[in-house]
Every structure is written in structure tokens, then in C-alpha cells.
């Protein structure tokens, strides 16, 4: 596992959240993926954390020294993938 020393490195590309911002959220008390999400928006963009969630978990582990179970994953929210209002209103959803 590579260490996250470069605070300017982008972690969440959808919401443009950096390593530094995630470390700051941990300083403010975030202890899991959801806590990071609420404070930084990491994982709240178009891909809903599919790309960055693992990176966020790794940074949490590096900063807190916790084991994966305690860090958790973010709460899965519908829809499974983006769906237009038109399709949703038509009653057609997955």
C-alpha cells in the first residue's frame, strides 16, 4: 500500500476532493467512509464513490491505524446507476 503524503493529490475526481481535505476531515472527527463523505463530499458525485471509496478507506487506515471493518463502506443508496427523471416517472426503474 502506497502512503498518502501528497496533500494535493485528488482522491475523488467527481467532487474534486484532495488527500489534504480528507486528512482535515479526520482531524475534525471523521472515523469512517460516511463521516468523510459528510464532511468533504468525497463519493457524492456522479460515480457515487465507485472510484474513490477504496482510496478513502486506505487514507483512513493510514491516519487512524484501524482495521477495515471499523472503517465501513458508505451506505448504498438507490438508484443503482444514474436514471433520468423521465424514465423514473414512467415507473421504469431497476
Amino acid at each position, binding site marked *: 500500500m502506497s502512503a498518502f503524503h501528497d496533500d494535493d493529490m485528488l482522491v475523488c475526481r467527481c467532487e474534486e476532493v484532495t488527500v489534504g481535505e480528507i486528512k482535515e476531515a479526520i482531524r475534525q472527527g471523521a472515523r469512517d467512509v460516511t463521516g468523510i463523505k459528510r464532511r468533504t463530499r468525497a463519493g457524492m458525485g456522479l460515480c457515487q464513490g465507485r472510484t474513490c471509496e477504496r482510496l478513502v478507506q486506505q487514507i483512513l487506515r493510514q491516519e487512524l491505524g484501524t482495521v477495515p471493518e471499523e472503517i465501513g463502506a458508505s451506505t448504498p443508496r*438507490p438508484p443503482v446507476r444514474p436514471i433520468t427523471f423521465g424514465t423514473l416517472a414512467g415507473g421504469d426503474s431497476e
Partner: protein
Amino acid sequence: MKAFDTVVVGAGVIGSSVAYHLAKKGLNVAVIERGDIASGTSSSCDASLLICDKKPGIDTKLGYESIMLYKKYAQEFSYDFEFAQRGSIYVCETEQELEVAREYAKAQADDGYPMRMMDKHEIHEVEPNLADDLVGGIWTECDASATPMAVAFAFIEEAKKLGAKVFTQCPIKGIKLDEKGHVEAAITDKGEIKTKRIINCAGVWSPEVGKMVGIDIPIKPRQGQILITERTFNIVNRKIQEFGYMLSKFEDVNYTRKVSELVEKHNVAFVIEPTLSDNCIVGSCREFVGYDRKNDIEVMQALAERAIRFVPILKDVNVIRAYAGLRPWVVDHLPIVSGVEEVPGFYIAAGHEGDGISMAAITGKLMSQIVVGEETDFNIDKLSFSRFKKAKTATN
């Protein structure tokens, strides 16, 4: 754990604000929160600070005074809670709705609040994506928005600067009273905290905390669901709601909408608001379904249907996320901000239904005045806990 002057239970927007205002009065404050800061209703809601959806009188007064405080705190606090004052619009579907809206806006304007009617031409000029056939609406100039979770984080950060201690992952398990029935200690997993005062700010869970001192707090969860759009161009420029929203919130508004069965069944009223991250928050419904925080596909369908009715271009915009939250509902639609006569040292700041973000700032300030025994900024007898006892005696 050591002793504190005051223990605040719950770190949603209300508890966070109460903690900040108490610390500002020089009290030694502990906040105990079952989960993380803003992990309850304050992380699954809209972001509006409004007076336009309040009833004339104390309801509107609370909203207005709170917005004024937020405006001040946005300058003072180091944590940015993304305060933006962009006004709000209520849109009307029919002439009949306009009629009711006119009466309402007049009553508010007569009380000195910045509310006025907009005609068909004007609403489309400021919000070009509204459906062509909408007939007009109400413009409320002072209405604003802020990011709810950030509001909680901001109050907590400021409270900490003033010496408050915050314990997360620390549920309250019980409350000890002394032989005179006065609050003596808060019992938690991490030990006992000696304190003379406990402020119950546990939102929809405040009845559980009330039971710990043997009182019955009449707050019920009233669920709401939300759809979040992808980041887009400006679909709307500010908070917009359908006037029928008043109808879904209050029972005594005398008007029935022509809507589909699905919309009626789930008590859906259209609201939309742009966030500073270029997404839109689209809602919402009001239903009593217990403590269920799951999204329901039928409700999501009704929300989408109603949204397209008012903003047709949403049809081709993506929903990337949905969530549900629980509004702390009280039968008279007013929060409880009060001491409890039967249990000296026990206080309640909860029950803000769909207005907790709007009213958090003023609620914290008023509660701090109650606790230190100062006169409150204005008369808040209507927010007292004893009002329920009186209502009971009156009906008996």
C-alpha cells in the same frame, strides 16, 4: 468522565447550535452523540433557510430571526457553512391557488416580512425553466440556504473553541435524578457524567431520552424522500416550491390539488433547490411510516412525476442518488424549546419538523437564554412543553 455544567444530547443542527450558544454564555458544556455529528435527520434533508413555508406569527418569527443570525455567523465563523441568500419562489398552478397565495403573502407582508406576489411573466423571467402554464407565485426576498451538515460542523467547531467537549459514538443510556427529582448525572457507555442540566436535542429520538426521566414527549417521525440530480447547468437559480406544499404540510389549508393518485397517496409536493456543488435537491413527501429511512420506489416515481410537471427539462436529467429522512413532527407544527417543570434541570429543544435547519440558530440562542435564566429575545410561551398538558386538560 468529569463533571459539566450542562450536557447536550444529540449533535444534529439543533444540539450543535444549543452547545455553541451555551458555551458562548460561559457554560462548561459536553455534547454526547450516539453516532457521528449530523448523522441523524440533519444529514438527510434539504438545505433551505426559509420563512415562506411558515405560518404567520411565531412560526415565521423563528424562521426570520434565525436567518438573520445565520447571516451574521456566516461572517464570524471560521467553518464555511455555505450560506447564500438568493430568495425563494412559491409557484402556483391555478388561479384558485393564486387566490390563497395572495391572502397568505398579504398577511406576511402586513407583519413586515419581505414577501410579495410575482405574476406569470415575472416568474418565467427569473426562472426560465418553469413550465409555461404556471400562473404566478410568491417571492420571498430574505430566504436563504446553507449546507445542513456544515451548519452542524460549524456550530460544533465554534463550540469547541469556547471549550465545549464533544463525545461521539456515545449514546446516553440513562439519567440519574437526585432525591428531589433534579437532574444529577447522564449515564453513558463511557461512564457517568455529573451534571445539573441535560438538554434533550435528539430530534425524532427525543421521546426515548424523555422516557429516561419519565416524561412523554409527543414527537413522531414524519418521513420525507429526496432525489439528487447529477451536476448540471443551472436548472433553477434558487429554492422553488409548489404552493401545494403548504397543503402537504398543514391540514387546515383549504384547497385541493388536481394530482395523480400516486402523488396524492404519498402526499408529494414539488420542491427543488440548487446546491453550491451544482446538483439539485428535488423533493418531497410527508408520510408517517415509523422510523423507516429507506427509499420507496413508488415514492421516487411520484417525486419524479411531480418534478417534471413543474420543471419539464428535468425529464432528461439524471438522478444519481436518493435518500429518506425523518422530520421530528409535533401536532401543532411548532418545536418544543423549553424546560420541563416536573424534572428540574431537564430541557427539550426538539420537534422542528421540516424547519430544523432554518430554526437551529435561533433555537440555540433561545435555549441558552432559558438555561441561564435570562429573558428570551421574544415571547416563546407557545414553544413550552407544558402546552401539551394544557391541551390534555382542555380535552378531558
